C-alpha cells in the first residue's frame, strides 16, 4: 500500500461530524452476516455518507436514513473523504 492510500483511506470512526465521505471497503474483521446487514443498510462500497456524530457511537446519514454503528464496527469500515 502506498503512503497516498494511507492518507486517502481512513476508518469511518476517525471522521469528524459534518464530514462527507464515500465508502471504500468493509474489511474482513466484520463477519459475513454483519457485512450483509451493513450492505442492506446502505453501508456498501462506493456509497456516499455524511457523518452526523461520533458520540456515543458513529451516527451517519445514508440514503436519508440515520444509522448508528458501534465503534468496533465503524473502525473496520474504510472511507475516503469527499
Amino acid at each position: 500500500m502506498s503512503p497516498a492510500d494511507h492518507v486517502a483511506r481512513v476508518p469511518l470512526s476517525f471522521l469528524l461530524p459534518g464530514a462527507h465521505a464515500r465508502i471504500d471497503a468493509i474489511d474482513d474483521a466484520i463477519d459475513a452476516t454483519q457485512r450483509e446487514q451493513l450492505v442492506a443498510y446502505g453501508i456498501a462500497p462506493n456509497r456516499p455518507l455524511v457523518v452526523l456524530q461520533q458520540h456515543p457511537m458513529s451516527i451517519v446519514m445514508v440514503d436519508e436514513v440515520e444509522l448508528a454503528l458501534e465503534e468496533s464496527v465503524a473502525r473496520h469500515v474504510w472511507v475516503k473523504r469527499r
Partner: protein
Amino acid sequence: MTPSAIALVGNPNVGKSVLFHRLTGAYVNVSNYPGTTVEVARAAARFDGSVDLIDTPGVLTLPARSDDERATMRALLHEPLRAVIQVGDAKNLRRTLTLTALLAELGIPAVLALNMHDEAGARGMTVDAQALATALGIPVIPTVATGGEGVAQLTHQLADARKLQPLLHYDAKAEAAITDLAARIAADAPHPRLAARGLAILFLGQDSEVEAWLQQTAGKAYVKLAAARGVAQARGVAPATLAHERGEAAGTLAARVTARTAQSSPLLAHRVGQWVIHRVWAWPILLGVLYAVYEFVGVFGAGTLVGLLEENLFGEHLNPAITGFVQQHIHIVWLADLLVGEYGLWTMGMTYALALILPIVTTFFIAFGLLEDSGYFARLSVLANRLFRLIGLNGRAVLPMVLGLGCVTMATLTTRILHSPRERLITIFLMALAIPCSAQLGVVLGLLGGISFSVVLIWVAAMVAVLMLAGFLAAKLIPGRRIPLVTEMPPMRLPLIGNVAKKTVGRLKWYLIEVIPLFLLGTLIMFLLNQFGALSVVIRAGEPLVSGWLGLPPEASAAFVMGFLRRDFGATGLFALSHTLSPIQAVVGMVTLTLFVPCIASVMMIIKEQGTKIAMAMLALIIPFAFLIGGLLNHLLRAVWGAGA
C-alpha cells in the same frame, strides 16, 4: 387450495402494520421503531371478505437471518398467496428496491405501496411513481398510510398486481450457479407458487427456511442440491456478493426515478434526533423524560387517580354498598366472606384490579405509547449500548427491555428481533429477573413514591445493580460472542394522539382480559388458604425468611404467595399493607418482589420461546436469588440508617 391470501411485506418500520389496519380494520401494534411486529398477523380484508390479509415482520435482509425475518420467509413459502403488497419507504428507495429485486425473482404478483412519501417530500425528494411502475411492470402507488392517503387507490389497483420485471442479472459465475440450481429445484422440488429461480437464489444465500422447505420437499434429492450449492460456493458465489449486486441494481434504478431539490436547512426532526443522543444533552433529556413519566404514572396515576378510585369511589361508596347488599341477602357466612370478606372476590380481587392497577397501567400505557411513537426508544438503544456491552448484549436489547416495563410477556416475544440465540436467552432471563412490568412498576411508584423520591431511587439503583451483575455473570457463563450494534434510527415524529389512544385501549383490553381472571383466581386461592388455616401456616413457616432475613412483618408472606401468580398481584398485596411498613421494609419488600418470579403468563411465554427446561432453570435461579438480594439489601440499609428507620 386456491390462493386466497395477500401478504404485506417490506423493510422494517415502513408502515406495514398501519396499512394492515387500514385494509382490514384489525389493529395490530404500531410503533415508530423497527421490530414491532415479530409474528405474522392475519385478518379478513375490508374490500373482499374472502381474502386473508397477512401482516409480516419487517425484513432488513432476505435471505432471512433473524427469527422475525424467518417468520416472513415462512409466510412467503407456506401461505396460499395470491399476491403481495410490498410496502416501501419512499425516503429509502434503494433499500425498498433491493427487496423488490428478490421478490421479482420469486415470481409472485405484486404491487408496490410507496409509503411515507410526505416525509420524502419534506426532505426534498420526489419519486416518479409512473416511471418506477414502468420499470418494474407493476402498479406503484404513493401512500401516507397514517393519514389514509392512497389506500383506496391501492385496494383498487390490487387487481392489477402482476409479476415483477427482473431488476438485474447477476455476474456470469452466479448466473450459472442459479440456472443450474433452479433447474434442479424445478425438477426435484417445484413450489406451487414461487419460481425455482428465486428459491435457488435464496438457497445460495443460505436462507434457513428455504433450506428446510427444500429438504422436506426434495427428499433424497436434497443431497444433490446441497452438493451443487457447495460447488457454487467453492467457486466464490457468496451470499454477500449476491446481496451486494441486488443493492447495486436497486441503487441504480432508485437514482433514475428520484429527483432531489437542495435542502435549505436540516429538518427540526433531525436536530431533535441528534440532541437526544448528544454527549452532554442526552443525559438531562433522559432524566427529564424519566421524571415526566414518574410524575404522570407515579404521582398522577398511582397517587391522584388511585386515591380517587380506591379511597373515594371504592372505599367510601361502592364497597360499603356492595358489602351491605351481600351481607343482607347472603346468609351463608363463607359465601359472603368469599365475595366481600378480607380475601373477597370483590373486595380484594376486583378492587385490586380496577381501583389500584387499572389507573396505573392506563397512565403507563399512555406514556409508553407517546414515547414509542416519537422515535425516542430507538435512540435509547444507542445511549444504552455502552452499558449493555458489559452484559454481553448490544443496545438493541433495550427495546424488549423497555417494552418489558409495559408487559414482560409481550416483551419476551419481542426478543425475536435480536440476532443470536445467546442474546435472546440473556435478555429473556434478565427480563424475568429484574424488569418489572407496568402494573408492578405503578404499584412500586405508588408505594415508594408515597414515601419519598429517594426511596424510589434506592429501588431503581438496586434493580440496575442486579441487572448488571446478573447480566455480567450470564454473559460470562453462556457461551457465544457478542454482536456489535448497527441500527437504524427512525426519524423523530410528533406522536399521533389517535394512534396512541388506539394502542392504549388495545393494550388495556388485552391486559384486563389477562389480569382479572388471574386476580380472581389468586383471591380464591388466598381465600381457601385462609379458610383452611393454611395461610397462617405459610405465614409462620415463612417467618424466619420474611421477618428474620428480610425484616418484613409476617403478613408480608401472603404477598409472596400472591406473587407466585403475578408479581403485581403480590406487589399490590404489599401496597395494601403500606401504612404499616417502614421505608426500609417497603423498599426491601418491593426489591424482593420485583426480582421474584414473573407472572404465570410470562412463564408460559418463556416455555414457549425457550422450552420447559430453560424456563424451570430460570425459576430455580430467580426465586432464591430474589430472597438473597432482598435480605442483603435489608441488612445493608439497616447498617447504614440504623434499625429504627
